[in-house]
């Protein structure tokens, strides 16, 4: 077999997704997190689970029942590890949310359904971020730091370079040197041993820098949010601009987060800022 690889790259045609130009069925169908479908006005009344029942079903305490006014149930996607127990236990209240586009610009916007003031706050944050990243729209370089992940997050970040996602086509590249980097991608719970290396990496990057917390571990610590080996996410260690939930966040979720950071999310697929669909 002389030159075994020369024509092999052409064997299967184009494998690359057309997202963000077009929609992608895997992105649209992926159950990345849960949504509240019946959190209000229960019919019959009294069906809405109590806070104790919610805490018993959710291993990360992501479900909350608010008693101010009418009882309302919310889910914090930043703490959700997509175990699906709430969907199994209370199918009339919770359902899988289809679509990998779950990144948000504020930590509060991951709590859904969101209050109206959260949406205003998100809009203000988006305008400020858009001003900051104006110079980064055409091509950016990413530096990734593992701050105590379980290892699956790195696979999903690495997947952005495979021919299916191929982020290089969008002018997005990974770099070894923080000096060349515009985006800091952080995974993991914020392990104590990684606090100083993470801080040094951030300091070595030239401003403006966009920081993306990738995965529920990085957003909130997830299942490991308490404990001596966790910082409850990386939000207290660096100034995070984009929050990408998921345990781990799927490649499409990460890509959506990157586009959100660069204000390049396609218009017809507005960011999941809390509005349930």
């Amino acid at each position, binding site marked *: *077999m002389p030159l*075994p*690889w020369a024509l*092999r*790259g052409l064997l*299967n045609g184009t*494998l690359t997704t057309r997202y963000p130009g077009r929609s992608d069925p*895997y992105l649209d169908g*992926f159950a990345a997190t849960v949504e509240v479908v019946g959190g209000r006005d229960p019919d019959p009344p009294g069906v809405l689970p109590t806070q104790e029942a919610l805490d018993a079903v959710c*291993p990360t305490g992501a479900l909350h029942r608010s008693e101010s006014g009418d009882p309302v149930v919310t889910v914090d996607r930043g703490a959700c*590890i*997509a*175990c*699906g*127990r709430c969907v*199994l236990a209370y199918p009339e209240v919770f359902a*899988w949310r289809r679509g990998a586009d779950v990144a948000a610009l504020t930590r509060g916007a991951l709590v859904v359904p969101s209050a109206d003031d959260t949406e205003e706050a998100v809009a203000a944050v988006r305008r400020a971020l858009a001003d900051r990243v104006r110079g980064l729209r055409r091509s950016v370089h990413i530096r*990734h*730091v*593992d*701050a*105590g*992940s*379980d*290892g*699956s*997050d*790195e*696979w*999903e*970040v*690495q*997947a952005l*370079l*495979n*021919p*299916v996602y191929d982020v290089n086509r969008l002018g997005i590249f*990974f770099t*070894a040197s923080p000096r060349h980097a515009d985006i800091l991608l952080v995974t*993991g*719970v914020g*392990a*104590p*041993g*990684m*606090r*100083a*290396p993470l801080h040094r*990496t951030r300091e070595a990057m030239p401003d403006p820098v966009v920081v993306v917390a990738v995965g529920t571990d990085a957003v909130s610590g*997830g*299942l*490991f949010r*308490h*404990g*001596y*080996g*966790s910082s*409850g996410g990386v939000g207290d260690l660096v100034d995070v601009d984009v929050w990408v939930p998921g345990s*781990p966040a*799927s490649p499409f979720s990460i890509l959506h987060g990157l586009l959100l950071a660069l204000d390049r999310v396609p218009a017809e697929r507005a960011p999941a800022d809390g509005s349930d669909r």
Partner: protein
Amino acid sequence: MTTPARTDAREVVLDVAGWGDDVRGRAAAGARLVGVYGSDRGDGCRLTAVLAEQDRLGALSTIVPAGTDGVARYRSLSPEVPAAFWYERALHDLSGVVPEGHPRLDPLLLDRGGSTPAPRPGGPAVASGGTPMAGERPGPVDVVGHGMFTLPLGPVRSGVFESIELLLETPGEDIPHVNVRPHYKHRGVAKQFEGRAPRDAVLVAERVEGISSVAHALAFCHAVEDLAGIEVPRHARLVRVVLAELERMANHLDVTMRLADAAGLAVAVSRFGWHKERVLRLTSSVCGNRFGRATVGIGGLCRGLDLDTRSLAEELRALGSRIRSDIRALEASASFLDRLRGTGPLAHERAVQHGAVGPIGRASAVDNDVRRMRPYDGYRDLPPVPAPHAWSGDVLARSRVRWEELMTSVATLLDALDTLGRAPVPASEATDTRVPDGLGLGSAESAQGEVVHALELSGGIVRRCFARSASFHDLVLFHDVFTGDVFTDLPFIEASFGLGYAGVAM
């Protein structure tokens, strides 16, 4: 310890000196050390050694009382049982027990400095931030001589990798010695298990080593099922095999991709990256999660699945033939094979001495495959998984073991799907079974090798779980494979190990 009748033989408790002598004697007689761990008991520490004898697991325990200074001490096993080397360091970091006479009691998982108390797994809960890491201290220097220097690689690596520090001691090109420092990403996993009900602790097990979520979930569930005597229904056993083999394929494809990347074979990197993505999507089409999480439950599966086994098998056949063809192309790429052949060899004697597990052991002719030693779940219902045929111990042998296993995984998957047939698989979680207190041992074969969970339950909740990943057991062998290898061999050797560092740093 009486000879265990089954893999679930419970522990035997001895006095400290008798325990040490027994472990040393059994190791000298050919028993394989699977792990040593501590469980806090207030006024001392309960030490447990897990051993495999004639492929069966058993546990030997002792209570080491705290001395007048509050520190528990015992005579180190490592001088006579070298496989205990890292386990005793981890024991010192986490449980604060001092193995006297240990050859190198440097921090491995947690650098507590001088006075910070240990987190003591098995004991009371530790407050968040209760065990701060000492300041960053430079690693050891072992090789001195004219022009020698130490090159620290990491913890932030170039590229998208897990955090770990490799200290290369070098005169400039050769690497006479490497030190591994995994402590940077220590997450305190052991304490995360404690105080949880078993069905919640499965979710922790899935996060010990995320790239082998299924294997860890299985090992944990086997430990509980062993304690409670739960029998898993047949369809759940088969689905467990489907998830486990898909996970193995994804891992082996990842290793192959990294090897091709190290050699600069751009087309191969793309091809194997694509194959891996297809496997992760197959996994998500089976259970909704790309890593097979939140599906394995105690007693079977924690959720029902509706599998289209026919179309799964069809896609798997096509994927298998593409993978086979691309492996054939790799085997025909002389410039690629030249980089693998003779690189980073692990001597058979060292692999035997350490009881190496997984593809690393198999490539050095030490076969400790749980699927063959102690068939579990659907492996009991299916034809036995054949052993691979590469024994030269180098990067090439480790790669060929994985390439053979890729093909046997496809065959096993097709068998499992065929046996399963087209029918909805109901959830089969044993929610009502009362699990008795005691020690349960569970194991499963991850892509990295044998995963063992030693689980202590008390009052229906987890008191201590020793989650031993294959990665933790095998990574120490990284010290032994640099024989005349140079800088540019490092990415090949590291990729060929194919280990998850989260499962090492715990």
